[in-house]
């Protein structure tokens, strides 16, 4: 690039200004302001924005509804990744190393590319559509409820429930919906990792007479473990969301008795339903701290694992 020293800085400036400007105005500045807003009482409509220090944070401590939301977020954070990664590994290994034809140690299952196309599709679906469809999966029988109707059709009618009407089921419904949406993505991700494992390793395992389960535990899993770990971090960040699912399936109050609430919905509700913008921002800061903690924690654990492997 030495030949083009002439006019270099005006060029750099011209190219950086639009992206940096938009990013700073609409994304960075809100994050900075959020911290200050969280220290004020502000209805948003009036100009009066009173500085109240940490009162909003004290209020959060005593807010039972917020505790529910936090508990649900933690459930999503733990259960959804475990379920998703387990199912993802299970189906990916079936697709890629599940087939065993004579003369070949491992082959993909027939039609595995079609399976991948089908499995991946929920990932590209708008969360809003997933949420609406699953609102009907769990609806009462007379309002379309697919699950209840299926249960009745196979003679398990006594298992039917008013799923969305029962507080104790709500967070688990969200777990199911999120897992449904995410599994296919991890099947494709792990498939790519499994494809890159050299075939002769499997042949050696087969000659040693190892069973499928042993092969999976001793060969496949260790070799895709890096990908699983990365997937885990990504999954954990995504599980902090869940906004569209809860907002559409359960409503802005988090469903019956608010039992299905999550932090994202709590923030939205505090701001745009209750016009308590200071409090909404404070919950946002809590969410940020939680996300940061998770990321740092995972990075720590991951780094330690890497050292052990090396």
């Amino acid at each position, binding site marked *: 690039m030495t030949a083009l020293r002439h006019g270099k800085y005006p060029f750099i400036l011209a190219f950086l200004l639009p992206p940096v400007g938009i990013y700073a105005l609409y994304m960075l500045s809100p994050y900075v302001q959020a911290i200050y807003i969280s220290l004020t009482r502000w209805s948003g409509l009036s100009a009066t924005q009173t500085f109240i220090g940490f009162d909003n944070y004290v209020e959060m401590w005593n807010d039972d509804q917020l505790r529910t939301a936090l508990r649900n977020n933690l459930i999503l954070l733990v259960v959804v990744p475990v379920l998703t990664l387990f199912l993802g590994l299970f189906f990916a290994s079936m697709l890629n190393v599940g087939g065993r034809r004579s003369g070949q140690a491992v082959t993909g299952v027939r039609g595995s590319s079609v399976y991948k196309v089908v499995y991946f599709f929920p990932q590209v679906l*708008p969360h809003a559509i997933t949420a609406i469809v699953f609102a009907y999966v769990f609806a009462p029988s007379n309002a379309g409820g697919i699950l209840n109707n299926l249960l009745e059709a196979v003679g398990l009618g006594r298992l039917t429930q008013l799923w969305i009407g029962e507080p104790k089921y709500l967070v688990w419904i969200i777990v199911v919906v999120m897992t449904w949406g995410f599994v296919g993505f991890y099947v494709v991700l792990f498939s790519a990792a499994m494809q890159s494992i050299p075939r002769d390793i499997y042949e050696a395992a087969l000659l040693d007479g190892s069973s499928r389960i042993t092969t999976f535990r001793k060969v496949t899993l260790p070799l895709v473990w890096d990908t699983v770990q990365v997937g885990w971090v990504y999954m954990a960040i995504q599980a902090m969301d869940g906004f569209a699912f809860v907002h559409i399936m359960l409503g802005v109050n988090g469903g019956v008795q608010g039992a299905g609430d999550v932090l994202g919905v709590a923030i939205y509700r505090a701001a745009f339903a209750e016009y308590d913008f200071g409090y909404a921002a404070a919950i946002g800061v809590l969410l940020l701290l939680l996300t940061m903690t998770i990321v740092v924690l995972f990075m720590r654990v991951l780094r330690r694992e890497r050292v052990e492997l090396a």
Partner: protein
Amino acid sequence: MTTTQAETREPSSEAPRNHRVREPGVGIGGKAIGLLNGGFLLFWALITTLPLLWAILSSFKTNGEFRTNPTGLPSGIEWTNFARAWNAANIGQYFINSVIVVSMSLTLTMLFGAMGAYVLARYDFPGNRLVYFIFVGGLMLPVFLALVPMFFVVRNTGNIPLIGGLLGLNSYLSLALVYVAFSMPFTVFFLTAFFRTLPNSVAEAGIMDGCSHFSLFFRIMLPMAKPGIISLALFNFLGHWNQYVLPLVIMQDGDKRVLAQGLGTLAANTGFRADYTALFAGLVIALLPVLIVYLLFQRQVQAGLTAGVLK
């Protein structure tokens, strides 16, 4: 390789029953496991497709059919559902809104993202690393923290003299710019890595031919980065088209809603209006663009989305 095994046996390896030495997992037990595998795979395929298929079938039914026979097949195709969804339920307006916003946001994201990434990847200047890390740091920030102040930032842009009329709340341009801002971290991150991999020799040849900085970018580097740009454009298209919470905050005016948001509102009101089939027709309308893009670019979409995790 595979031949070492095949040759130690009889050439009749197509008929596994004749094997005297059984390989684990190829005998009858192996067949059973194979069937079980297939069963599991099929089971998940059904779990994935059935709810969507049910929604599509429901969009063809009449409301009477939907209520009396929710799990059966429709007796015919009730096209008026789609007409009601498009007109009465306002899905047509929402669809157009989505198209306007996403075409603006996608163009600007790719243009500005590529410009920023190119400069960060290929020019040395003081502060380069800092700008890069400020962009990439945004990957870790949760959207929800920004929600409240972003609302006020957007509202206040409406008061800017001259251009304020184009911005502010309920403005296509505002929403598009917000999408651009929130797409910048990943776009810059991904494209910077991509521009770094492009060979220097071509750029140098361009300089020899007397290209300016601008023409070097637009005529040589940008076309060379096409594969990266395409997979990222698909990624961003899906992200923007599917976005739910940002428009919920910015597009509060009923006529300005985008598709995902409008569907959410429609779903909330459907119980009262008892027009289920129009909701599912609207859902199918919203589903089609995503389905088409996915089927056309299925390999790039999978590669683009999974690359986001691996990099």
